[in-house]
C-alpha cells in the first residue's frame, strides 16, 4: 500500500504544469570545483573520474574481511545452496524504532520480535537502517543474519 502511495505522489508532482526553475545560487561556503563545476546546478553531473590509461580496472575500496552477499540466481532469488546457519529468510519488518543514539535503530520482525541493528560501525548501522526502511515502506521481505548477540549484522532486501 505504501509503495502505491509513493508512486501516486510522484505522478502528481510530474503532472504539475510548470516545474520550478533551479536557482543558480551557490553557497558561499561551498566554492565550485574549477575542474568540474560540481556546484553549478545547471550542468550535468561530472563523468566518472580516475586514471584514463586503463590501469584503474581494479577493486580498490572493497574490505576483503567484510561479509560478502550470498549467491543469487539471475532473477535475484537466493541460490538453494546458500541456505546457511545464522540467516533468517523471507521475513517482514513491521515497525522501526530509533532512539537518541548514533546506532540506535531496532527493527520489529513479524513472528520474531524486536531486533537491534548491530552498532559495529556507524555507517554500516545507517546502511542497514536504510534497507530496513525500504523493506518496511514497500512491504518487501528481507533476509538477515544475526551475530552471536542476536543483533542483525547483515541484511538483504
Amino acid at each position, binding site marked *: 500500500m505504501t509503495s502505491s502511495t509513493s508512486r501516486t505522489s510522484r505522478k502528481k508532482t510530474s503532472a504539475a504544469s510548470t516545474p520550478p526553475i533551479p536557482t543558480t545560487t551557490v553557497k558561499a561556503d561551498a566554492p565550485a570545483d574549477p575542474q568540474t563545476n560540481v556546484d553549478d546546478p545547471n550542468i550535468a553531473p561530472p563523468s566518472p573520474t580516475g586514471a584514463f590509461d*586503463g590501469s584503474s*580496472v581494479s*577493486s580498490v575500496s572493497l574490505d576483503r574481511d*567484510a*561479509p560478502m552477499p550470498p549467491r*543469487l*540466481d539471475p532473477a535475484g532469488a537466493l541460490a538453494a545452496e546458500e541456505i546457511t546457519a545464522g540467516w533468517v529468510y523471507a521475513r517482514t519488518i513491521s515497525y522501526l524504532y530509533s532512539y537518541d543514539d548514533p546506532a540506535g535503530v531496532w527493527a520489529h520482525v513479524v513472528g520474531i520480535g524486536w531486533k537491534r541493528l548491530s552498532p559495529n560501525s556507524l555507517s*554500516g548501522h545507517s*546502511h542497514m537502517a536504510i534497507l530496513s526502511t525500504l523493506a518496511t515502506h514497500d512491504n518487501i521481505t528481507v533476509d538477515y543474519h544475526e551475530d552471536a548477540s542476536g543483533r542483525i549484522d547483515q*541484511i538483504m532486501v
Partner: protein
Amino acid sequence: MTSDRNLPEIAAVRESLAELGHPWQAAETRMSRLPEEWRNARLGVPTPTDAEIAARTGQPDAMAAAAQSALGQQVSAAGAPGISLPASFDLRNVGGRNFVTPIRDQGGCGSCVSFGTLASMESTAAYTRGTPGMNLNLSEAHLYHVHAKARGYTCASGSWPDDLYGDCVTKGVTFEDYFPYNDNGSGTVNADWPNRLAKAVGLVNLTGNPAAMKQHIYSYGAIESCFVVYSDFMHYKTGVYKHTTNSVAGGHCVSLIGWDDAAGCWIGKNSWGTGWGENGFFRIAYGDSFIEDYPGDRATVFGCTGVNLRAWLPAQRTLRLFATANDANGWAYLEHYGWTHLAGGPNTTTNKLAELTHARGSGHAVTPFINGNELSTVQVHD
C-alpha cells in the same frame, strides 16, 4: 550445393570416415567453398614443424586417458555448480542458462587467437557472476589490430595466446562498439577506450592438463586452446571430430566450452561463422589434433578466473540490496551484472544506497558505471 571442385575432396574424407565408423559427418561448409589459400588464412597459430609433431607421439592417448580419469574429481571453487566434475558439461546449458556469447566470424585474417581469447573472457565474465544476460561483446579488432599489431603480429603471421591473453591482463580490451571488427584491420579505436574496458584477472596456464582444463571450465567458464588443423577439418559438419588425414593445414585457436565423457570429446566454439560445423560449434575427440598441448615450446591453453570492467553498462533493474554492520559495505545486485560493491567509502555508500532503494522499490532502471567490479557511479531513471 557442393561445387565440382570440392566433390572429390569431401568424398575422400567420407571414405575415410566410413572406415572409422562415421565418428563425424563431412559436408560442404562455408570453409569448403573457399580456395585453399583463403582457408589457411584463417589459421592464425604458427604451424608446428614435422619434428615438433613427431615428438608428440603418444600424447593423444595420454591426454584422452587423463581427460576421462578426471570424472568425479573434487571441485573446490565456490562458484562451481557442483562439488565434483560431472561426466558432461556444456556452458550453453547450465541449469537452462547459456553462458556462451554468439558465434563470431574472423573473416580472412589469421586473428583466431583474438577470437578464442575474447570468447573465453566473455564467457568467464558472465559465468563467474551467474548472469547469462550480461552479453558482453569485446573488440577482437582492438586485441588484434592494436595490441597484437604492436607486438609485430599481422593477419598473415598469426599470433600466440600467451601474448594476447597477457595483453588482456595488462592493457585490457575495449567493447565491440568502440572498435567494430573488420578482417582487413580498417577503422580506429575510440579514443575513450580506457573508459570502456575489460581486463582479465587470474590468468591460468592449463596446457597439457585435461583435468585442470575441465576444472577451469566448470569453475570459471570457457578457456582458449590451440590445435593442429588437418585439411579435413574444413568440411566438418557434425559429430565428434577425429582427423582422418595427416595433411596439416596449419594451427588454429578456439575456445572450449564443455566436454562429454560418453562421447569422449571437448565441445568447442569456433570463429568461422554459423555456416560451419554445428552452427559454429564443434566437438573434437579428447587428445585429437593436440588440442590439450600444441606441439612446440609455448603454452597454448589458458583461462582466467575473472573479468574486471571499467564501463557504463546498459540500464537495468536493481534486484537486491545488501548491507552489513561493517563500515562502507553496501552491495547492489544488478539484473545483468550480478553483485557489485558500492565504491567510495561510507558517505558515498550511504548516498548510493539511498538512490538504489528508490530504484529497488519502484522498479525503475539504473545505469551503472562499473569500475573494477565496483559501482562507481549510478544514474537512477524515472
